[in-house]
């Protein structure tokens, strides 16, 4: 629908001018990656550990940036302005796509860096990229919804991570497992459990969010 596109565009315009969320995410990712790489040093970690580290960096980086989309509306008092002119489901989807793009941008930088710095040998790029692609929908879907919830609460920061973690955990679990498999085997079929789980999760969380968003947004 047109409204979804307009909201997405507006958020992109705003982000382009302030670059707040993208900076927060990138900076967090780079700092964490550096810290991890520095501490591990020359030691070669197993694929299991590397897969977990990757997702930890990804998850916490997104925690520092995904809630921006709603918190900014509340803080600059444009929430009512937006509420006045938009349908709730359009708002959720518009901001969902924005967060999706944000995640993709993060990964475009993080993935090459991680592979290079941590010596993460990806055997099957098919599995890896597919995991990223489907996993992003789950992360952005759940993250956007929780961001909407906490934007209406009084204390913001830590609450976002506390609430998101249980909700997004299935993505983490399946994602880590699939990423490990991407570094170990070539066959796409090996990761089919994880990929199916990610796909199912993505669909369910987005549908549930669209249904529930009205209740969060409308007073």
């Amino acid at each position: 629908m047109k409204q979804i596109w307009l909201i997405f565009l507006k958020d992109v315009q705003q982000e382009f001018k302030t670059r707040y969320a993208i900076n927060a995410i990138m900076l967090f990712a780079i700092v964490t990656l550096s810290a991890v790489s520095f501490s591990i040093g020359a030691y070669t970690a197993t694929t299991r550990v590397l897969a977990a580290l990757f997702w930890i960096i990804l998850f916490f980086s997104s925690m520092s940036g995904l809630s921006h989309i709603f918190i900014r509306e509340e803080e600059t008092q444009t929430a009512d302005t937006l509420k006045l002119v938009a349908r709730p489901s359009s708002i959720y989807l518009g901001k969902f796509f924005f967060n999706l793009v944000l995640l993709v941008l993060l990964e475009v930088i993080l993935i090459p860096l991680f592979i290079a710095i941590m010596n993460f040998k990806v055997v099957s790029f098919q599995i890896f990229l597919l995991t990223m692609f489907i996993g992003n929908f789950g992360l952005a879907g759940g993250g956007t919804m929780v961001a909407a919830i906490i934007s209406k609460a009084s204390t913001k920061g830590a609450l976002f991570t506390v609430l998101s973690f249980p909700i997004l955990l299935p993505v983490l679990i399946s994602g880590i497992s699939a990423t490990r498999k991407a570094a170990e085997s070539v066959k796409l079929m090996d990761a089919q459990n994880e990929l199916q789980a990610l796909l199912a999760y993505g669909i369910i969380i987005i549908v549930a969010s669209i249904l529930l968003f009205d209740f969060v947004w409308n007073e």
Partner: protein
Amino acid sequence: MLNAKMELIAEKIVKGFGHFLVLKNISFKVSSGSAIAITGPNGSGKTTLVKILCNLMAPTRGQVVYQNNSQKINREDIFQYIGLVGPYLQLYQELSAQENIDFFARMRNLKNYSARVKQLMELFNLSGREHDSVKTYSSGMQQRLKYVCALIHEPDVLFVDEPRSNLDQAGIEAVYSILQEQKKDKILVISTNDQEDLTLADQIIRVGVA
């Protein structure tokens, strides 16, 4: 939009926040071609009532009904017919005036509105500053720009909360011409404590008085 006979009906609106009752049984009816004013002491619930009427907040009890030629309008479509100007409604600071206007106009599905934009910008003395970001506007200019954004789609019901805030004499005159225009064949709702503003209204609703 122009020849519609609009009716805004408030039926026994009650609004409470926890134990505290702000609005008690507010009812009124207003049709196209008239104006209604909401007045009362500060903090008495004027803004709350305006928000409820604009569908920004749900009442605890009672309901708000918009009717177009006696046909009830769906709650989710109301935004097409109303415009709101208020201090709590900020514009997008990082975007330019033109980008703000585009957003609000297109959200309501307007297509060819550049002529109207030009006309409104001239009326409110903002011509030439369309492409400056709203951050650089003074508070008076932002208030005037809010009027432009609220009027772009020629709303059947215009809500104005505190018409005079942040405006100098020239601004107030521009606003008044709009308000007079609006109440001629559409609905105007103002929330104010100013005596002069109250003379615009055909009906007055008092809030916060026992």
